[in-house]
């Protein structure tokens, strides 16, 4: 391996690395809120909301992320970074919604019934009784989604999003080196994803034991 490639282009690698982290965090926060809303829509006691939530999840989960990104990039003519963040948020929200829904459904029905019969409204019971318990079940799959987000952010390279993979394309264009450039990119990705997946593995074991 030629470490001079890494040393000479460190600023570009770092710029891409920071963009990758930035976009992943941005999309994580966005998709968590959107996903939570959709999850609640899917289980709310009001049929039309259920339908909208289900339609969203089923449609988004079954089309490629790249197509969503293209709709914003080529269709709406948004800049690469914005189009990519929006696409990642919309795409990941569908998966997060399913994780949250599974978490909520794992809480015993009696909890909701007890909360409702002691006078809480549906919203209050959900917020104060069901969701705090569901969070524990939801954290490991959320962690997995975050890992996916970091990996999926690489599609921004296709729409000039400026993240790690895109910077690598630029570096390899001007150095005429391919193999080494991408080995270093792989290492940058692993620096983020390996600790995350070890953390998720730990949480899965730990939370499973405590419940």
């Amino acid at each position, binding site marked *: 391996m030629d470490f001079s490639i890494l040393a000479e282009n460190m600023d570009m690698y770092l710029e891409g690395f920071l963009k990758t982290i930035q976009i992943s965090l941005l999309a994580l926060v966005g998709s968590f809120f959107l996903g939570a809303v959709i999850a609640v829509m899917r289980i709310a006691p009001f049929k039309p909301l259920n339908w909208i939530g289900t339609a969203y999840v*089923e*449609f988004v989960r079954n089309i490629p992320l790249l*197509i969503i990104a293209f709709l914003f990039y*080529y269709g709406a003519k948004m800049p690469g970074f914005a189009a990519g963040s929006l696409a990642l948020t919309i795409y990941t929200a569908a998966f997060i919604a399913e994780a949250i829904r599974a978490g909520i459904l794992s809480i015993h029905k009696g909890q909701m019934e007890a909360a409702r019969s002691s006078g809480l409204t549906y919203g209050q019971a959900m917020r104060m009784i069901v969701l705090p318990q569901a969070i524990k079940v939801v954290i490991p799959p959320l962690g997995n989604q975050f890992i996916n987000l970091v*990996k*999926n952010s690489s*599609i921004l390279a296709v729409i000039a999003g400026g993240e790690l993979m895109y910077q690598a394309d630029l570096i390899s264009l001007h150095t005429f080196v*391919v193999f080494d450039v*991408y080995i270093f990119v792989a290492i940058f990705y*692993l620096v983020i994803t390996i600790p995350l997946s070890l953390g998720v593995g730990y949480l899965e074991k730990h939370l499973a034991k405590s419940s």
Partner: protein
Amino acid sequence: MDFAGAYTPDNLKFLVDGFLVTLKVAVISIILSFIIGGILGIIRYAKVPLLSKIVAVIVETIRNLPLILIIFFVYFGLQDPSRGWSLNMSVTTAAIMALTIFESAMISEIIRSGLNSVPKGHIEAARSSGLNYIQTLIHIILPQALRNMVPPIVSQFISLLKDTSLAVIIALPELTHNGQIIYAQNGNYIYPILILVALMYFVVNYGLSLVARTLEIKRA
């Protein structure tokens, strides 16, 4: 937006051609990944000294990398002119190879957790009635584990079908790529074509997810 102009018979045929490439690449990759992933999964499950550890490191590394990087790496990295390497690989071969590398790692985990889902008591019972380890694996563990694995493998195939779209970066003539070629000719075709392409993916993937769900209900 020009739907009538975008959906000419020629353009539609071009999209269908692309979709056939998508399906072909996905089907070949899933079959290869099932074989390779199966071997890797069994090695990790069997806890072969050293070998299982090596497989674990490789699988975890690949699972934690973006697929687009692997595609790029296989196509451009392995034929890097600056190193004097040239394999003359076609884009189709490169796409299948990259998808197989990535999906094998994913499927090996499905296989491993499927194997782990077989209760220990069954294995002990089989061993104590005189079967050796290999016989136990073939007659007792695998048949039960395979049933548990079918739904997650179908889901993995869905994500593989979606992931083939990433091969646009090496210009594999699949659905997304062909769509791109059509709307590059006329800006008014962008939405009509992207919507149609999304629907084509959706119909196949949703159909597959219904199959996975039915299998899951039957199993339970």
